[in-house]
């Protein structure tokens, strides 16, 4: 199944522990360049933990994580981001007491020396998200949840990463905003952006993704093409609400 070219990101049999509790058991997955890969699962299945170990927010006790030929397990988040990763954190996590402008700008922190490029990307984000353009000077904490999610997406976009990690972008949003968020992600996919997406909303994630992994109690229980998984009876029953 592996193509000849090595994957952009590969996770190789990692275990993660939170104190005495084990959250992941030998989880392996890979993301090829230009691919959208989704990790699905219910509550406490370990999908967020998988993403967090890529970002260096938790350290695996076993196994390797390789990004672009470099082992990154156990490195600090800043080091991982420096290697060309962007992150849209769970629960948006915008800086509430800073303006929309400043929030976006901070997304470009690792490439802060390139002023001209940043200005250009900033303009691009504002055309993509006219709502944010209207509120440039407003404090991010006063935006609605949907607007904050847009801001978090725009902030990640300014990283111009090889890989964007997105954690539950639909969480806590009204259906209309979920659609708006995924409109943006479809556009990113069309532009060739590599994405690792963790999502509880399996239906919409499988529409977007090329491939997907299903986690349960810290194990990968299913993997395959998104279209195949969407048609899989077990997935339909467990995650898509089929009778």
């Amino acid at each position, binding site marked *: 199944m592996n193509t000849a070219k090595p994957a952009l990101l590969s996770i190789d049999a990692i275990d993660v522990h939170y104190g005495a509790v084990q959250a992941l058991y030998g989880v392996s997955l890979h993301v090829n360049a230009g691919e959208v890969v989704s990790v699905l699962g219910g509550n406490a299945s370990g999908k967020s933990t998988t993403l967090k170990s890529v970002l260096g927010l938790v350290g695996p006790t076993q196994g390797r994580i390789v990004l672009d030929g470099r082992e990154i397990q156990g490195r*600090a988040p800043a080091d991982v981001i420096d290697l060309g990763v962007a992150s849209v954190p769970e629960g948006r996590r915008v800086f509430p*007491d800073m303006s929309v402008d400043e929030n976006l700008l901070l997304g470009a922190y690792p490439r802060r020396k390139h002023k001209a490029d940043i200005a250009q990307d900033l303009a691009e984000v504002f055309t993509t998200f006219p709502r944010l353009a209207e509120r440039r000077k407003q404090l991010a904490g006063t935006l609605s949840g949907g607007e904050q999610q847009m801001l978090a997406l725009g902030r990640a976009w300014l990283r111009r990463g090889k890989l964007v990690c997105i954690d539950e972008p639909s969480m806590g949003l009204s259906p209309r905003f979920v659609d708006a968020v995924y409109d943006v992600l479809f556009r990113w996919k069309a532009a060739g952006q590599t994405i690792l997406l963790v999502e509880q909303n399996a239906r919409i994630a499988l529409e977007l993704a090329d491939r997907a992994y299903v986690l349960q109690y810290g194990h990968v229980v299913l993997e395959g093409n998104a279209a195949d998984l969407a048609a899989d009876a077990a997935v339909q029953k467990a995650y898509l609400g089929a009778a």
Partner: protein
Amino acid sequence: MLELFASQIVNGLAIGQVYALIALGFSLVFGVSNLINFAQGALFMLGAFIAFTGVTTLHLPLVAAAALSVAVMSLLGMLLERLALRPLENAPYIAPVLSTLAISLIVDQLAEIIWSPEGQAFPVPFEEVTYFFGSAYITSTDLLIFGFGAAAAIALTLFLSRSWLGRTLRATAQDRDAAAQLGVRTSNVKRLAFGLAGALGALSGILVALYFKSVFPQMGLPYGLKGFAAALLGGLASTPGAVLGGLLLGIVETLASAYIGEGYRDLVAYTLVLVFLVFRPQGLLGDRRLDALGGLGGAGGAMPSTSVLSSSSSQRKATRVLELPPWGFLAVGLALALLPVATQNAYVLQAVAYAIIFALLVASVTLVSGSLGILSIGHMAFYGVGAYAVGILARNHGWPAEAALLGAAAITAIIAMVAALPLLKLSGHTAALGTLAVGQIGYLVFMTWLDVTRGPMGFIGIPAPRLGLLGGYTLASLTQKFCLIAVVVAVGLALAQRLLNSGIGRVWRGIREDRLAAHAAGLPVRRYILLGFALSGLLAGTAGGLFAYVQSVVSPESFTVSASILLLTLAVLGGLGNLTGAALAGFALTLLPELLRPFAEWRMIAYGVALLLMLRLRPNGLLGAR
């Protein structure tokens, strides 16, 4: 008249500028690590002394000495972060605060050893010029302080709003994890904040040294507290707020000292703090726009919590809690009451008597700070109220001991309850600051209310306790007083433990763990907080009354805020909310210095180091927090 007023304003602005610089150090650190850095005062004092050494011993010009001091203090600020705070990242929220406290105890004492405890003249290398406008005047030092302070504040504001470093500093302050996920090295940012705090401390220390033309090792605490108050007035994490708060505080207290009297300078300053806490707890420029979204933390996605015992790592380690049952206190108390049978040595009995009184006092602190979760940095005020009350009732009105002690306890309970009124809506840091203001105001009232307390001269001639129930039998000897103390304290502690084991104690701990949830569960939270303060006041007042009986003289020096701070650390050492731990810590650590008298100089250092070690090894206290 008007000219005098103008001079006062200028004076106020100059000293206010100094407060502003100290406050900026607080705000920077508070912003980045949500921590009230009690060591800021120590950094300030050290900064002044290093410049002093530079000028006197190394014969450097003032500017070079100042630069040296700023450089050294920046490094020390970073070192402070590395040694005292980094290891405590996942410890309970209260641990880093106490860690900075321990550091300041150590530094203050070291400074006394290195530079001697006496104040020394700070040589001002330039001729001071005074400019007159009519009868108003302004000195060149005022101008220097004002100009320099303003420049530093403006530079810092620009740095924070315009530079990448400043931006990451603010981002880290608001959401550390999110900043890390954007590639910010948050631990470097934190170190930078502490380095800046050190530099600001040094600058403000030097300016104060120039202003008063002297340095003294005890200068850290009073100015640290003022800077703290200024930061609070401005709105804890706001940079322009800190400056504004400093200036406001400077002007108000200068006017108070000019028009009411010098003794009222601090009284007015801390009353202002308390008024602000009631009517504008977010400070002058603090912001409540985000409160609808659950406040800064809520909007940032961080777990909202009011508990002093919880930590940023979501799991709380189970700790074993060692406690005496209520009757255990009675048994220990009776055993101690028999001590005079073993020895009649007055020195030993006196020392143990104080230790027993402190056991009760620290227990009263742990009731509020531990069980109720409102850190009290002002309990000495309640202790003092009890002491003066017994003095007044027993000497001026000739009450027997039972009535005087009960009366003192009741008066203290009422005063503690009144003092708690402004704190009802506050939690966390602001509540702690409120108790600090209460403690400071209490001390200042003892100092200035001459008709009743005789101020610094002390209240003298408190008669020996006379027991009305035993037909006026007077406990004249130390042995008899000792037995009275042991019995009263044992009964007090047993009743308090009984209460903590009851439903009331459970409600208190619930309020500590999550006040919002307690409200939501329909608990009358305010009533329980008032009750907690009243009962804590009852115990503290009793302890104070007993203290007055042993001493027969009471003076304000016994009730300072630094003593209150020490009390809180004792409560933490024993394990917050653990009455047995508090009593043990109070008892043992009052007695210990007596045993170590030859090493008196090193006492606070040893104590500070012990506190640091304990925070590392047993963050929940010796006997476990309950």
